[in-house]
């Protein structure tokens, strides 16, 4: 099993004719993902290596029955692209675009909540989602992930996610689904959404969680874990040495005043019974140990 996506997920790529969209869309298809269409306004009727391109998401969905979208368009068009997909009835939208203005992002998110409550947005500014062996939407290199489970991964950081997938693979540990929720201030999908889905997924037996400084999503996750989660969790939080008031690469990775520090997040998670580790390597080792004892 997997969460949010599986081998039956049919994906359209918004921005398939662009450099990034083409590169990653074709890679996702080569991985085995059902990439059924592309969407670029004005380029309908053409194709990208056999994948048909449509002018609108609605046309692409009508023609292919797609139920997921991979949004890879420049920041100034991203919010509209997300809303277009939602309006066309796409239930799962992955947006990798980095650099979307905060107000556009906040408006798009709240419009989804108000008008399309059953649509799930992953990202923006995220690496995407991979259910190894089944479906890969986004920019993760599929070959670094071992299929089969029993570990579910959820992360705010792309490279740390890759690192985790890779280390688990080296240790022979498989993954059910790996979700990159992204580093922006208003993520469409947060830690709790993923933890809830992993809890409900019978094949996921343990969860690795990679957080970072800024916001309070890790603290919310800690509360959820202590109340509802029965599966073991290993967590790593990046940014122990980050100074206050500076954005550490990700728009959302900023300590505001005394809020959002790594120490506070680690403390909250440890208090919730989570195995909190000090670096990504330890996370892999700890997870392997937990999986062995399952």
């Amino acid at each position, binding site marked *: 099993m997997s969460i949010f996506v599986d081998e039956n997920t049919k994906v359209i790529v918004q921005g398939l004719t662009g450099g990034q969209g083409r590169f990653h869309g074709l890679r996702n298809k080569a991985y085995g993902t059902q990439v059924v269409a592309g969407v670029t306004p004005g380029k309908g009727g053409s194709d990208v290596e056999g994948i048909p391109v449509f002018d609108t998401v609605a046309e692409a969905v009508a023609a292919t029955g797609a139920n997921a979208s991979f949004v890879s368009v420049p920041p100034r068009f991203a919010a509209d692209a997300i809303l277009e997909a939602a309006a066309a009835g796409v239930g799962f939208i992955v947006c990798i675009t980095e650099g979307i203005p905060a*107000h556009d992002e906040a408006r798009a998110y709240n419009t989804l909540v108000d008008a399309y409550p059953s649509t799930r947005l992953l990202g923006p500014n995220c690496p995407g989602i991979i259910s190894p062996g089944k479906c890969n939407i986004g920019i993760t290199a599929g070959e670094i992930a071992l299929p089969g489970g029993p570990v579910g991964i959820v992360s705010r950081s792309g*490279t740390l996610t890759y*690192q985790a997938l890779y280390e688990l693979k080296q240790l022979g540990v498989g993954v059910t689904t790996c979700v990159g929720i992204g580093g922006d201030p208003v993520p469409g999908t947060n830690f709790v959404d993923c933890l809830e889905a992993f809890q409900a997924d019978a094949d996921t037996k343990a969860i690795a969680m990679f957080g970072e400084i800024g*916001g309070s999503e890790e603290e919310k996750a800690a509360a959820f874990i202590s109340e509802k989660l029965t599966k073991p969790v290993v967590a790593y939080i*990046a940014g122990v040495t980050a100074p206050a008031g500076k954005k*550490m690469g990700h728009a959302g990775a900023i300590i505001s005043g005394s809020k959002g520090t790594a120490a506070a997040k680690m403390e909250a998670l440890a208090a919730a019974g989570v195995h909190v580790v000090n670096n990504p390597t330890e996370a892999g080792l700890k997870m392997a140990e937990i999986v062995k004892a399952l």
Partner: protein
Amino acid sequence: MDLFEYQGKQYFARYDIPVSAGGVADTVDEAVAQADAAGYPVVVKAQVQVGGRGKAGGIKLAADAAEVRTHAADILGMDIKGHVVRRLWVEHASDIAKEYYASFTLDRAAKKYLAMVSAKGGVEIETVAEEDPDAIARLHIDPAKGFTSSDAADLVGRAGLDPQAVEGAVDVLTKLYRCYVEGDADLVEINPLILTPQGQVHALDAKVTLDDNAAYRHPEWDGFRDIDEFDERERLARSKGLQYVGLDGYVGIIANGAGLAMSTCDVVNQVGGSPANFLDIGGGANAEVMANALEVINSDPKVRSIFINIFGGITRGEEVANGIKAALGRVDIQAPMVIRLDGTNAEEGREILSTVTSEKVLSSPTMLDAARTAVQLAGGTVR
């Protein structure tokens, strides 16, 4: 981007938010000229992006030109918590009957905008929030729906502002919301928002943080980029389009991805060292980007060793290694370095790196080992 007070007030003025008459001055003579234009008495205010200016002596009242001259001379060049005052804002001194507080920002936990209004202004809002939380009226705003003047009236009413301030405060709040949203700000804060004895409501201070992601639709922001405020190293990195944050340590860090870069700083710290910087070169690691990154690190005299931490995902190990190799040929590196390369085709990458390794350029397969080596190379004590 954080604005200086004077820039914030100029930005407020674009949205018709009332501010005091005044102008900027970089010299004593300019300060006197601005004071003459604003009308006495005036307030001479240090322009630095740090709290506690008043206590540090950076804000002074002047009754005439002679006093402006004295205060301006004192404040210009003053060091306030490490920020040197290079510019003054000189404005007409307002009569103050009451001091309030107003702000709009994003509440990340609620994923909605948060408006805050308080009748207790003039002090840090965090202090009010701790000591007298009920004194702050809050309202969550759905960004998809917006903020109306009746929302503003409700807030002002709940905050308990004086009756004669209500009309003016509602007006300022609706304009401040426009400034926040249309002006693409992450934060707009007026503290204090004052009521004058004549019943006028206006902004006596301005704290504005602009959203850098929206810069493409705000050509008017170009004038705000005051590079004097940046750390020298951050300025160079910015000019090369790198994500860089200067820190106080001695191990220069280069990594791909924000999470990995943060994590690299943490691991260096964990083994007993101290990172000199956060530097994210992004997904790939071609020679151009790597050379730029090395150049920035090289410009930092505090750097005693360099730790390059690259995880190859889609970018393969051999491409990364070739990028590093080419960059090493282009930049004359001062400090010894350790390179950790892992991920897709890491073996092939390390093979290529082995042709450039020397006493000054080492390679290490794991992040922790590389961190220890970096600290040792810097002459630090490994924990």
